């Protein structure tokens, strides 16, 4: 393992981290502010990827696809909120889990019915194709760097929005004490819709950005959903800052673990079992980290809810 390879893996890890953050941000806000468990958040990410890939094929341009996919993701998010989720806010978590799982089943299958089961490809835009030399012997794809930069920019924007605007203050107030916010005369219904639509759009954005480097296929949202849940639980529910740090942590653990674990295992084991044990351990690492963090800090690293 050379230093260059380690750096590439670290960058890949951070890039997975920012994608996870984009999905987890919406999830943690919806959960924190509305106390609503939305399992269907992962399919928003998948829909973003599908919309991006098919719009890119239709318009022939990555940028048009990105520009058109965002309002489409927003519209789908708001439609789902209006049709299903709004009726579930005052129900218990179990009902929310079951109903949003029904939405996942429907949308996963709808995607199969519309686009087929074969994975779609989305080309990398010309402007961001090719590689860039970060240091001697270290070539890194420009597009992956662009994801990293875009993700960090959005994280900053989100931080400004949550910490520095009136809407952000309401969101934070909602995450820490919702009944009090309603008692102060804030229209929580409108706030919920705003947060919900925004979260759906962020997940859709993550999907479009991920489409050129991942294969776009049904069920791609499920894996991300579970990792995003891990992220928000580690970070502390309702906390955007916690979600950001936990997302980078999870991205790094997941990526570095996969490349380092098999080598690490070779110190103790023969090559073939080392590869197998290493792969299994690497997949487990994120969950081991979560279990360890929850065992010592049962409310996550940065819990948002007071008391």
């Amino acid at each position, binding site marked *: 393992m050379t230093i260059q390879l380690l750096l590439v893996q670290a960058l890949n890890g951070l890039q997975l981290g920012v994608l996870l953050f984009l999905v987890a941000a919406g999830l943690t806000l919806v959960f924190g502010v509305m106390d609503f468990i939305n399992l269907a958040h992962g399919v928003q990410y998948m829909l973003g990827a599908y919309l991006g890939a098919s719009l890119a094929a239709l318009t022939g341009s990555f940028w048009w696809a990105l520009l058109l996919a965002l309002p489409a993701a927003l519209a789908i998010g708001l439609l789902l909120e209006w049709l299903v989720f709004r009726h579930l806010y005052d129900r218990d978590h179990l009902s929310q889990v079951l109903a949003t799982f*029904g939405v*996942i*089943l429907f949308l996963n299958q709808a995607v*199969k019915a519309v686009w087929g089961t074969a994975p779609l490809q989305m080309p990398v835009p010309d402007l961001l194709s090719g590689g860039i030399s970060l240091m001697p012997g270290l070539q890194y794809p420009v597009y992956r760097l662009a994801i990293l930069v875009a993700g960090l920019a959005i994280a900053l924007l989100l931080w400004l929005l949550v910490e520095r605007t009136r809407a952000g203050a309401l969101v934070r107030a909602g995450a820490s004490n919702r009944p009090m916010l309603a008692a102060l005369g804030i229209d929580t219904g409108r706030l919920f819709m705003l947060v919900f639509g925004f979260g759906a759009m962020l997940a859709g954005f993550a999907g479009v950005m991920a489409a050129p480097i991942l294969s776009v296929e049904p069920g791609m949202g499920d894996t991300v959903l579970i990792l995003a849940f891990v992220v928000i639980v580690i970070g502390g529910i309702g906390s955007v800052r916690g979600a950001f740090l936990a997302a980078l942590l999870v991205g790094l653990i997941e990526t570095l673990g996969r490349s380092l674990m098999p080598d690490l295992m070779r110190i103790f084991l023969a090559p073939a079992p080392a590869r197998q044990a290493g792969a299994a351990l690497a997949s487990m690492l994120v969950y081991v980290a979560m279990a360890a963090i929850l065992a010592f800090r049962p409310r996550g690293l940065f819990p948002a809810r007071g008391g």
Partner: protein
Amino acid sequence: MARLRGAALPLLVLALLAAAPFLGFGAGHALTLLARGMILGIAALGLWLLVGGAGLVSLGHAAMLGIGAYAVVVLDAAGISEAAVVLPAAMGAAALFALLTGAIAIGTSGVHFIMITLAFAQMAFFTTGSLSAYGGDDGYTLYGRTTVLGARWPEDRLAFHYLCLGLLAAVLALCQVLLASRFGRVLRAAKENAERVQAVGFNPYPYRLVAYTIAGGIAGLAGLLLANATEFVAPSFLAWQRSGDLLFMVILGGLGAPHGAILGALAIVLLEEWLAGFTEHWRLIFGPLLVLAVLFLRGGLAGLPGQLRGLLRRG
């Protein structure tokens, strides 16, 4: 009267299952389907004890089921298929896993409990995927089914049907006895208000841990049966989607009474099969049905009779 009414529905379901082979469900395929429903019903009953009884929502219950199934695999590879060995091994292994992970998980609550049980289940899932001696990710086909004192009668489909039914009834009875006992009352009280239970001098932790371990043992039994029903075990037995399926069976069935878990398991298994007969895109119907069930069936399937009575009285 209310007590009789409460017992009528579960007895009716068990009686229908007993009569099913003679009511047109006697063909091989139908029996396989019913066995699957009953086995998942057993696992769901264990989970009901946690969710409905103790208020512990676990998203890792498939791990216990899978560990029971893998106990069958390990013994099968060693040439042992005698139920007198396999049964305690499967239930013991699953209960032990539940005890060890539960000891850590029960310290958390709410959504954190959901996630930490998921984490432990994922660890078990990836471990089974790396067991190359037992097929790794591809799974393991059993050499032979479990024998009972050397006899091979459980291989007969009809005999297996009644074996599953008998165990289902036994587990249902166990859940009801547990729930009515002092132990069950502490569990239910802690579900409603843990602080008050502590104030009157009970620590909920050991009660919850014991319930978690019992549910694990029940899931191990279901895993043993499932391995026998399919004669094949794979890491997918432990996948989080299956834990989700079990949880949905419990929620759809209703948290009001344990037999809800059986209703939920049978409803989901049969509905999937029935809808799949119409179209390959059956989930397009199944998904919205789940949403509608949540929105309009507030007490789950087990609460349906009460809801209907309420409607009739008003109408």
